[in-house]
């Protein structure tokens, strides 16, 4: 995947975040001459992408595209995501696998969960977000500043983060992208996990809503 990105967008600096993995991630990325940040131990998905955001903020990047490294995302679509952010149409462009794409159909319990949170998100923000867990997104510095703050979750950023961005006055746009099945095995195993996740998500949304005033007051600072 890395050679593809480098070949297609040679002018873009690439950063690989290695979240304490025991495989050869670091060596492979270094062999490709791209920057690597390696966590000394596993910190979680959210913490890993936050490390990436911190790097980008430090490096004075104006725009950042975030991709999952398992080949889920189509390298060609990076341009589609960057364009609206670069032109100032929105602060955050989310790559959605559900817009204009019926090929991806998750199992029914997951579908119910997705529907549920989609409804809640729409209720709070007034904007329908079809794919809040998307790991394929482009953002500008305003979003980076929020994401490097202490309200960004360590595990899986979901609808709660989007609701938070909405309170901050960030404009979000969803872009239809192609997504492939992940080549690595799913992170969600154990029958209790979906229930735990649902409960946790509801709680996170509740907390985020209770912090609404806090985020609103900080609008001008981002």
């Amino acid at each position, binding site marked *: 995947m890395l050679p593809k990105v480098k070949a297609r967008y040679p002018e873009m600096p690439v950063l690989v975040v290695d979240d*304490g993995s*025991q495989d050869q991630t670091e060596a492979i990325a270094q062999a490709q001459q791209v*920057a*690597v*940040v*390696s*966590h*000394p*131990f596993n*910190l979680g998905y959210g*913490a890993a992408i*936050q*490390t990436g955001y*911190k*790097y980008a903020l*430090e490096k004075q990047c104006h725009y950042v595209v975030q991709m999952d490294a398992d080949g889920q995302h189509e390298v060609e679509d990076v341009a589609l995501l960057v364009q609206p952010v670069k032109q100032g149409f929105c602060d955050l462009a989310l790559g959605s696998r559900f817009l204009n794409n019926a090929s991806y159909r998750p199992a029914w319990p997951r579908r119910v969960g997705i529907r549920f949170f989609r409804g809640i998100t729409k209720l709070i923000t007034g904007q329908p977000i079809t794919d809040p867990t998307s790991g394929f997104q482009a953002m500008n510095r305003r979003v980076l500043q929020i994401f490097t703050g*202490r309200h960004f979750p*360590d595990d899986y950023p979901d609808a709660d983060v989007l609701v938070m961005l909405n309170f901050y006055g960030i404009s979000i746009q969803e872009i239809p992208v192609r997504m492939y099945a992940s080549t690595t095995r799913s992170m969600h195993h154990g029958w209790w996990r979906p229930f735990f996740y649902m409960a946790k998500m509801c709680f996170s949304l509740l907390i985020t809503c209770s912090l609404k005033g806090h985020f609103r007051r900080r609008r001008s600072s981002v």
Partner: protein
Amino acid sequence: MVSIIFYLVRKRRLREEYALFWIGCGILMLGVIWFYQGLLFVSSLIGSVTPTTTLFLFGFIFVLLLCLKISVSLSQLKTQIKILAQEVALLTTYKDEHHPPEPGDSEKPCNKLTP
């Protein structure tokens, strides 16, 4: 109890400030038994029939609050560790960008913990 605390502190498995807290707890328990009349009085105040109920009630509330406090400390530590690890990882990367390791240098950046 006191000897266990002493042992743990000597082995540096328990910090002194926490040890003092636990020794204080032990002394408090002794005090409660010493002033048995006081315990009976509190029992009659809260309407419990036996003084053991009073002890268990307050003990339970105390342990509950203690657990909550430990959860808070643990959360704080986790956040601090996360920020530290991110910082270490980023600093290692910045360092390598300014002084890239020699191709022949077999020494790897030592920020990986061995399992």
